[in-house]
């Protein structure tokens, strides 16, 4: 039997969650994507045990660390004191100091360990959120937009730190608006819409989906079946058919094809397609 780090089975409620199931393996990152109000934060809170599910079951192999979307820390404390405060819940004495030291190292906070929490910028707040979530050697991390809204350098650094944790067997459930971080990190993604999983799959498989772009002199009044009109002409997913077959369909509709190219779908397009298809 597979030893999962976290499983959710048919979790319904609180709103808007509706029959969400997932299974997270140790050393795996699952990305949660969806528009605002899709239920990403609620799903993470349910997985963390902070919110009770209306129906369904949640199982964790151990305690889960939770980093909220907009983390707030006691403003009068320094970064080291904040981590020391949380570490007191896990251990005492020398062990507590070790936990604080490890958490500072994990998130790269050692240089600003004596800075006040009230003075931290967004990047350092997200680092501190990651540090406290990983305190105590937690094997499941639930990160709510921890990698979103950061500059590219900070995002790359945090992605590397998360990847290091995952390499040690930590499982991560990561909600993200920033899909580039997910493309880099996640092995699987779930697309949520109105509390339901409308698309799920491995990132490698999803990013292997190809699209045929057809450039036309004049946009057609009516696109051929399976195509949609774009600013430059038409495009269609190549789901199981060849580019030649798709182009032949264009010619059959008497469209003057100027040029064409095949490209892979971005994660953003996959999310938008899933969102549109589930309407």
């Amino acid at each position, binding site marked *: 039997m597979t030893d999962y780090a976290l499983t959710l089975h048919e979790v319904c409620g609180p709103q808007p969650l509706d029959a969400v199931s997932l299974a997270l393996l140790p050393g795996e990152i699952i990305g949660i994507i969806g528009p605002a109000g899709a239920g990403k934060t609620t799903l993470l809170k349910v997985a963390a045990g902070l919110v*009770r599910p209306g129906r369904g079951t949640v199982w964790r192999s151990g305690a889960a660390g939770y980093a909220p979307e907009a983390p707030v820390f006691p*403003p009068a404390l320094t970064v080291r004191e904040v981590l020391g405060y949380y570490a*007191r*819940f896990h251990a005492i004495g020398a062990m507590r100091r070790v936990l604080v030291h490890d958490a500072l190292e994990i998130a790269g906070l050692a240089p600003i360990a004596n800075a006040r929490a009230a003075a931290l910028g967004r990047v350092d707040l997200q680092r501190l959120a990651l540090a*406290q979530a990983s305190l105590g050697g937690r094997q499941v991390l639930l990160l709510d937009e921890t990698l979103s809204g950061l500059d590219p350098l900070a995002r790359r650094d945090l992605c590397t730190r998360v990847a290091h944790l995952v390499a040690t067997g930590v499982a991560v459930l990561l909600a993200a608006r920033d899909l580039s971080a997910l493309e880099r990190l996640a092995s699987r993604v779930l697309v949520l819409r109105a509390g339901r999983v409308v698309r799920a799959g491995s990132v490698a498989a999803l990013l292997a989906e190809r699209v045929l772009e057809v450039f036309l002199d004049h946009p057609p009044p009516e696109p051929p079946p399976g195509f949609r009109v774009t600013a430059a002409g038409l495009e269609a997913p190549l789901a199981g058919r060849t580019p030649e077959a798709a182009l032949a369909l264009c010619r059959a509709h008497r469209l003057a094809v100027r040029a064409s190219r095949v490209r892979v779908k971005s994660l953003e397009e996959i999310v938008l397609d899933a969102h549109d298809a589930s309407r």
Partner: protein
Amino acid sequence: MHFLRCVFAEWALVRPRLVRTRFGLCLLLLGVALVWLGHHGADPLAVALHAGALGSVVGAAFAIGSAADRAALVIALGHPTTPLAVATGRWLAAVLPAAGLAVACSLAVGWQTPSAVAGLVAASAVAGCALTAVLLAGSGAALALFICMALAGAVPPEAFVSIADPGAVRVAVASALELGPALWRYREVATGSAGAVLHAAAWAALGIVLASGLVRRRGGARAP
């Protein structure tokens, strides 16, 4: 044992707050004002009671009154602690500096053990009430409670009820003074009244239980 460790974690936040926020300065100014009053006619018992009560209102405001401190509870509850431990620790964080202030003020105006004990009892009762009020409505509630305690806290309810033709407001104020952690009642601690001590203990316990419920609500209902 784990519960006590979690309570201690909350209480340990007092030192940085005393040093780095206006908490220490507020307590110092309050102490100076009360000692000045003690040297200008206020009796030592009134000084100790006000030091304990007002000190614990200030303590509750700085322990959890700011929006950031209340928002930070969400992350704390993601760790292996409980709302009851958080509430108990924050209650201690409000009571102990106030108790220190009551003892210091008693020393400064002429030590009387019964007065100092009454101050400690008042601090524990008012801290329970203040903690709940502050969790419900923030620092504004602490300011309102501070003013009420300073102006009317020591007035017995009979003073309001005996006014001819009392209106609903007067009855409400008298009831609040009768049931709430008002200082007129804790004066009796100095004379050895067990009822007054029990009243204070009940308020402290009620305050911690209500505060833990509010803390739980802030973090979301934790799954079993």
